[in-house]
Structures are given as C-alpha cells and as structure tokens.
C-alpha cells in the first residue's frame, strides 16, 4: 500500500521505509522558529532545559512580528531579549522591523527569505505554521516548550496524521479567490473537521493558483483543526522557489494506492465570495447573505492575505475610489518586500489616495495586539484568519472574515459589499 505525500515526508525524515497514520515518529527538525509572543517563553524553557546552544543556529529563525514596531515598553523588552538571544547564539535568521533588511509577518517573510524548501519538517511556535505546506513542506504549529526542546535537541515527536484529500475542480467565479475556497471548505467541515489530520489540497483549481494564493489556503488549514495542510510541488512552486533562490528539496507526491481518511470533491463553480461571520471561522455564509451589514472598520493584511497578490486584488477595487467616511480602512503589507513591491507598482498610492491608513508590516490588529483595535459594539471585516469573540479588540466587538476584494469593496461602501457594486 502506498503513502500520502505527508506520510512520505515523515517517513523520509524518520529514515524509515514507510510510516502509517497513528504511528509516533521522532524526526529531525529542518527549521525551528518562533515569534515575539511565543519565543520569549521558549527561551525561558530552553535555558531551564540546561541547553546553551541551539542544535544548529542556521536552522533556527526568530521573527519579531506581533507587537512590532514595539507597541509597549514591555514589548520592547521582549524583542530586546530575543535580539540578544539571537546574537549570543549565532541565530542569523533574526528579523525585526527597520533593521536594514527584509522583515514582516513570519508566514509571508520566511518563504521570501528562501528558508522554506519542499519536503522539510518545519516546527513553528505559531499555529499558522501550516502555511508552508503550500511549498510542499510538512509544517505544523507547536507551543513554546516544544519549540524549545526542538531548538535544544534538533528533534520533535509527531503522530503521523491521517490525510483528508480535497480535490478542487471547475471554473472559479469572478471575484472568487483562495480565501473563499478555504473559508468554503472550513464552513463545510467545521473548526474541528480536520482535527489531528493532514489536509491535502489538490486539483486543477489549486494548480491554477499562485504561490501567494496557495499560502492563504494552507495558512487557514489550522482553522479546521488540521495538523498540516499541503499542496504538491508543481511548475508554479518551482518558479517561485527559483525566484527566492531555493534549490533542491523533496517534492513528495501521494501514491495512487495510498489510503486517505476521506476524499472530498469541491466544484468551485458553485462557490461565490464567502464571509465567515462571528464568532467562528466555520460560521461561513455566501456573501449575498450578509450584504449590507454595517461596519466600523476594514483591515486588509495579515499572514493570510497580506501578500502582493492580495494587495493587487484589493487595489483593483479601490483604484480611483474613496474609503467611506463611516469607517476606517487599515492596510498592512505583510513584509517589507511586499511593501516595496506595492510601492513600486503604485498600489500603495491607490490605498493612500483612497484615504486608507497604510502601516509598516506587523501582525498588530489581527490578534488584538495593537494598530487599530475595536471598541465595544464595533464591527470589522478583515482579511485575517480568526473571528473569535474579542479577537481584534473588545469582547463585545465583532469580526467578519473575507477576501481582500470583498474587504476593499466594503471599505468603499461602508457596509459589507460585493466588489461588483464598486467596480461596475
């Protein structure tokens, strides 16, 4: 019996001929990383373990993205401690805003920096580590102590997950993008629909998506509870990897006789733009059902939808328009490289002239940290990944999740709107 691509990566890592779902394997970590909210706890645990040096400093990355630029004095103390840890331990892959090189939201930044390769086992102290499956890696989120142990020992234990295969076919409707497909999928299976399992995303529609779009889909796999989400390497992936200077890697493909936990076909011709309503990412409705919901804020950005592809789509809707004075629009390119590209293409000018607040890269508003939080009773539509109660501010505020084009159209109309209302 054959293996799924996730099983193949774990078998290769474990140096075994095969692995089976449910089996526990201990595998070497190819990349271990964390960010400024999870890494401080990992550093404390790392020291308590009696470890002095990371197993391999080149395989460790620290990305300060959540509370940067330092939102509070305490945040400044945390980033300083991580900066010092990186310097003392030879961690060259340390990223923080405004240090003369690329920086930004980890899951957009690490692929740009060429740190992600197909077939890698990636251990990240952040739940949205699932993103990197878009480049054919096994990537999963962990807590701080797990990351500390992986940093000290260079290994991590994993239960081999069952794989749920999702096959996307049909023609994408206008204004429908990867965000709509993953919201639609989460709406179908629920927030625990893929708990402990791998999501394998495949089919002609996936093949037609840019790497930016694929990252959006794998990013939100964790919102269905998935351990990892993964897309096979193809020409599109190879072109992307070449553009960021990555060579080699293990491009696993599922065997035709492998065993899936389930196989679900999704005809995207039936999918219209989707919106996840509060307070759960699986409370998904067709855009047509929520048109007209009034808003106080719109946020375009995050590790889910802050890449150049996302900003281009949003700018297409906002070009020559003005943001409604009934709300505030905040746009945050996910990385400095995205920011520079958007600047070069005139996209930032579109946002600025539309009256949006455009910020330097940060996770800030998405997790309710800083940079545009919500007052009681306020309502936002955001291109982010979670709409839990209080996620972006006061517990009595509300978060709707959508694609960049729906968010952009809503910013112009002052209420949840279809892009066609703005562009026709």
């Amino acid at each position, binding site marked *: 019996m054959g293996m799924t691509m996730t099983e193949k990566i774990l078998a290769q890592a474990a140096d075994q001929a095969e692995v089976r779902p449910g089996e*526990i394997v201990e595998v070497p970590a190819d990349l271990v990383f964390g960010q400024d*909210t*999870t890494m*401080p*706890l990992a550093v*404390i*645990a790392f020291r*308590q*373990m*009696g*470890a*002095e*040096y*990371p*197993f391999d400093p080149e395989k460790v990355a620290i990305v300060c993205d*959540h*509370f940067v630029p330092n939102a*509070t004095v*305490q*945040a400044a*103390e*945390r980033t300083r401690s991580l900066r010092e840890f990186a310097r003392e331990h030879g961690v060259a892959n340390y990223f923080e805003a405004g240090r003369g090189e690329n920086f930004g939201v980890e899951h957009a930044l690490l692929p740009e920096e060429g740190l992600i390769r197909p077939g890698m086992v990636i251990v990240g*102290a*952040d*739940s949205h*580590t699932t993103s990197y499956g878009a480049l054919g890696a096994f990537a999963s*989120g*962990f*807590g*701080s*102590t*797990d990351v*500390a*142990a992986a940093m*000290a*020992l260079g290994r991590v*234990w994993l239960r081999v997950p069952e794989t749920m295969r999702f096959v996307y076919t049909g023609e994408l409707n206008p204004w429908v993008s990867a965000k709509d497909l993953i919201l639609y999928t989460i709406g179908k299976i629920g*927030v*625990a629909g893929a*708990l*402990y399992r791998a999501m394998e995303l495949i089919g002609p529609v996936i093949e037609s998506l840019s790497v930016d779009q694929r990252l959006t889909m794998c990013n939100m796999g964790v919102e269905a*509870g998935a*351990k990892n989400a993964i897309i096979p390497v193809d020409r599109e992936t190879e072109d992307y990897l070449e553009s960021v200077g990555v060579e080699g890697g293990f491009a696993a493909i599922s065997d035709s006789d492998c065993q899936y936990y389930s196989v679900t076909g999704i005809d995207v011709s039936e999918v219209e733009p989707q919106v996840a309503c509060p307070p*759960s990412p699986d409370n998904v409705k067709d855009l047509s059902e929520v048109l007209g919901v009034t808003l106080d804020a719109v946020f375009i950005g995050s590790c889910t939808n802050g890449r150049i592809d996302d900003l281009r789509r949003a700018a297409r809707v906002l070009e020559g328009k003005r943001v409604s004075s009934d709300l505030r629009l905040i746009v945050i390119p996910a990385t400095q490289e995205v920011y520079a590209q958007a600047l070069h293409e005139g996209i930032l000018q579109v946002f600025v002239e539309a009256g949006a607040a455009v910020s330097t890269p940060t996770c800030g508003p998405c*997790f*309710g*940290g800083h940079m545009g939080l919500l007052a009681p009773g306020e309502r936002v539509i955001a291109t982010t990944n*979670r709409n*839990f*109660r*209080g*996620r972006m501010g006061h*517990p009595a505020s509300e978060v709707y999740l959508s694609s960049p084009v729906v968010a952009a159209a809503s910013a112009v109309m002052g209420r949840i709107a279809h892009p066609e209302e703005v562009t026709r």
Partner: protein
Amino acid sequence: MIIEGRVWKLGDNVDTDQLVPGRYLTLTDSQELASHCLEDTVPRFREEVRPGDILVGGKNFGCGSSREHAPAALKALGISCLLASSFARIFFRNCINLGLPVLIAPEAISDIQDSDRIRVNVETGEIENVSRSFRCSVPPLAPFLLGIIDAGGLTAYARNQLHAQAPETERGVSP
C-alpha cells in the same frame, strides 16, 4: 496518578484567545497570565477557581492560537487536570509539555456538570463522578506522554535527554 477535584465545566470550541487574550501576550510570568485567564468570557473563573479544580470542556478545547500562555495560566491557577470530548492538537501537546494531565473523554462529558466532584485516574483512564455515582473508562495517555507528565513536563524531560547525550556530543548543555 489519581486526581480528585471540583469541576469547572466549559463548552465547545473554547479558544486560546479566550483563555489568554492577545493583548496580554507580552507577559511571561504565569501568575500574571493567570490573573487574566478567561477574563472576557468567564470573568468569575479566575476569582473563584481553587487549586485542585478540574476543567471539563466540550469539543475542540483549546483551539486557535498556539499560545502556551493559555495552559500556563490554567496551571498557575492550580487546575489539576483537564478533560474534554476532544482537544485542539497544539493545546493538547502544550498541556502535556507543562506537566498538566489531560484526558480525551467524550464518553464522560455529558455526565459531568459544573461543580461536581470527580476522580480521575490518569494512568488507567478511569473517571468517577463522585457527585452522581457515574463511572466510565477512557483510553489512557500513551506511556511516553505519561512519562513526560511524570518528569514534570517536557522541560525536565528534555533536560534529562540533554544530560544523557552530553558526554557524546559535548555541546548544547551547561554543566
């Protein structure tokens, strides 16, 4: 390991943003984190919880963010054990890594109510609701996970492993 305690019952899909809201993620001290645990959704929890209490959740407990601040806060409040119909996987690992016993116990949840007294044998998976004379048995944790809990969590467990490998590699370990 037999744990007996009073139950705090919560519902399905309790996310880690509820357990410790994002605005507190610059904190690293577990007592400070504990002082904000569930403050937006169950504000009386952090005031009324007592050391030894047992947390019982529904489906997908601990979903969302990987923040270990969440189980660290529960541990600092003295929560002795967690039961749920199912756990989000990162939260489940985090509990074990902090030495906090967790059991997946879908059979037991509907027969346990808030404030009940229950007894949990973490090694055998036997659960007894002392208040309602209900008993059931669920699959216990895998032995190597119990080993991590017995060691006091992954930090102590990894320390032992590092010391065991130190003579060979002579790196990564302080004396």
